[in-house]
């Protein structure tokens, strides 16, 4: 039980990689939150929202918005538009991010239970899990778990005789990174191209099919049953710093032990990198890292003692993002890495806003030319100008601003390497 209380999201998972089926999930205390909320008077939707607000649960998809606050924006009551939707954003596609896959493959019922509680709180009638098409194992296991949950009346009409009804469907995406953007995702779910929508209005008011819709990340919803079971104060106390709960942290790149760990929110970058990931591989030094996916700003050695949470990472000019860090070593070229990421963002642009579809490709070509020894004086100014043009407000969504973050900070921290590419007419690391 201790392991579960310290690692609520992963403590009950089987270590052999197999899925926690319904009986094992129930045995570990699963669906108690649904019972607590729904059975015999249970809780009111407002009480659920207040508890999640009080827990200071912030969105684990990367933006860190207050989950309880988001839920409270949904119009409810008799005059509210009908139906209301809950959408689970399971479109994990941020480069370097591999946390939601674990949650869905190993314990799909935890996600389903979180969705039922969230659905009850916002008075949702229908919920969708929007899952990226490449997550084939997760798809199989979620589909099975949904069927099991229907059989036991955790889903469907009149759940456990409470009067609350929720339908839950699994949608497998047709691809594209932009589907992870919540309004692009809603368009995809409506069977359209996944172009993000202009905001406001925001989805809790005008969302899927024009109806009130809450879009929550997988990890966010997985926290919800535990907050209901153990309380807001318990959840807040799990965090070490300014933010609450635990967090699935990860590390990839040339570290000794790449992997994923559930740790107290606010664990320092150094502890994740050095203790859990085992530090850099022998013979390599840390050059810098992206804390939570390709669209977060680089941090370097001097920032390693920063707690990895939304609040502290913002103070050092970066973002926690998804909390799964991508580590750049001193034998890997930062210009090449920037080129790889700009090629990614350029390819994944939905093609709607000009700074994005035009600017990203431009930056990609400049970085390519530098890598191929054709860099010219003035290239770095052009890159800086482009990145400036991708600022929030110039585009409908966060894709281009997200591309600007790693590029601008790469130019700031690795300026010497960029200059060498131009002055030496080659990539020194090839």
């Amino acid at each position: 039980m201790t392991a579960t209380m310290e690692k609520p999201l992963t403590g009950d998972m089987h270590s052999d990689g197999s899925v926690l089926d319904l009986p094992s999930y129930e045995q570990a205390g699963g669906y108690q939150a649904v019972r607590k909320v729904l059975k015999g008077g249970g809780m009111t939707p407002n009480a659920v929202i207040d508890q999640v607000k009080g827990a200071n649960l912030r969105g684990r998809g990367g933006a860190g918005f207050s989950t309880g606050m988001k839920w409270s924006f949904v119009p409810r009551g008799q005059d509210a538009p009908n139906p209301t939707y809950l959408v689970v954003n399971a479109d994990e596609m941020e480069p370097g991010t591999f946390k939601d896959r674990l949650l869905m493959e190993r314990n799909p019922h935890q996600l389903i239970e979180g969705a039922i509680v969230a659905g009850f709180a916002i008075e949702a009638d229908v919920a969708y899990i929007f899952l990226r098409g490449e997550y084939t194992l997760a798809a199989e296991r979620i589909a099975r778990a949904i069927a099991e949950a229907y059989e036991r009346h955790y889903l469907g009409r009149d759940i456990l005789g409470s009067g609350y009804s929720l339908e839950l469907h699994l949608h497998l995406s047709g691809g594209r990174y932009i589907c992870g953007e919540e309004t692009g995702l809603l368009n995809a779910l409506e069977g359209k191209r996944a172009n993000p929508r202009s905001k406001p209005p925001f989805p809790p008011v005008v969302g899927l099919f024009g109806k009130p819709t809450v879009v929550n990340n997988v990890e966010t919803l997985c926290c919800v049953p535990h907050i209901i079971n153990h309380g807001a104060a318990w959840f807040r106390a799990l965090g070490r710093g300014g933010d609450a709960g635990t967090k699935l942290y990860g590390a990839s790149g040339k570290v000794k032990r790449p992997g994923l760990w559930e740790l107290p929110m606010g664990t320092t970058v150094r502890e994740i990198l050095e203790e859990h990931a085992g530090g850099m591989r022998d013979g390599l030094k840390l050059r810098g890292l992206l804390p939570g996916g390709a669209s977060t700003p680089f941090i370097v050695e001097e920032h390693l003692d920063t707690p990895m949470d939304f609040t502290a990472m913002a103070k050092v000019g970066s973002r926690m993002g998804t909390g799964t860090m991508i580590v750049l070593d001193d034998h890997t070229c930062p210009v090449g890495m920037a080129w790889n990421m700009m090629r990614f963002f350029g390819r994944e642009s939905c093609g709607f806003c000009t700074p994005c579809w035009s600017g990203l490709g431009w930056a990609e070509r400049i970085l390519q030319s530098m890598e191929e020894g054709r860099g010219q004086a003035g290239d770095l100014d052009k890159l800086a100008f482009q990145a400036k043009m991708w600022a929030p407000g110039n585009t409908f969504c966060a894709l281009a601003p997200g591309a600007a973050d790693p590029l601008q900070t790469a130019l700031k921290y690795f300026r010497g390497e960029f200059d060498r590419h131009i002055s030496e007419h080659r990539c020194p690391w090839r």
Partner: protein
Amino acid sequence: MLTREEISEIETEAAHYPKRDAVCIDALKIVQRHRGWVSDDSLRDIAAHLGMSPTDLDSVATFYNLIFRKSVGRHVIMVCDSVSCWIMGHERIKEQLTQRLGIGFGETTPDNRFTLLPIVCLGCCDHAPAMMVDADLHADLDPQTIDTHLEKYK
């Protein structure tokens, strides 16, 4: 003509949405699962079944990279080229695959066995580099073992 099986699968999914054309991405994927890809004829049949114009449906179909509007081989290899895999040696995997198969990305081997495509981050970053072949994930790739992975796909 859509088969009875395809229509039945499409209708099962269509019941999940309040608007009929919302199911179009599922429909494209269902037909692709049965036929390998979505030909012009298939596209027209799906559009007719859903009461959409073929042009509208194609604007959707061509947006999504997991929907194939060109014929593909019996097996589709999707190689992750995102940043963690790049750091961990994606370039060498890419070279090995293109040399071994004698084709570039976006192409199909003359024997129609493999189509080679790039893919965004597969969420397998702690076991990079990674690729998918059909529905199977292959991780911790190195150029020496690529052939072993491919052997089981005939």
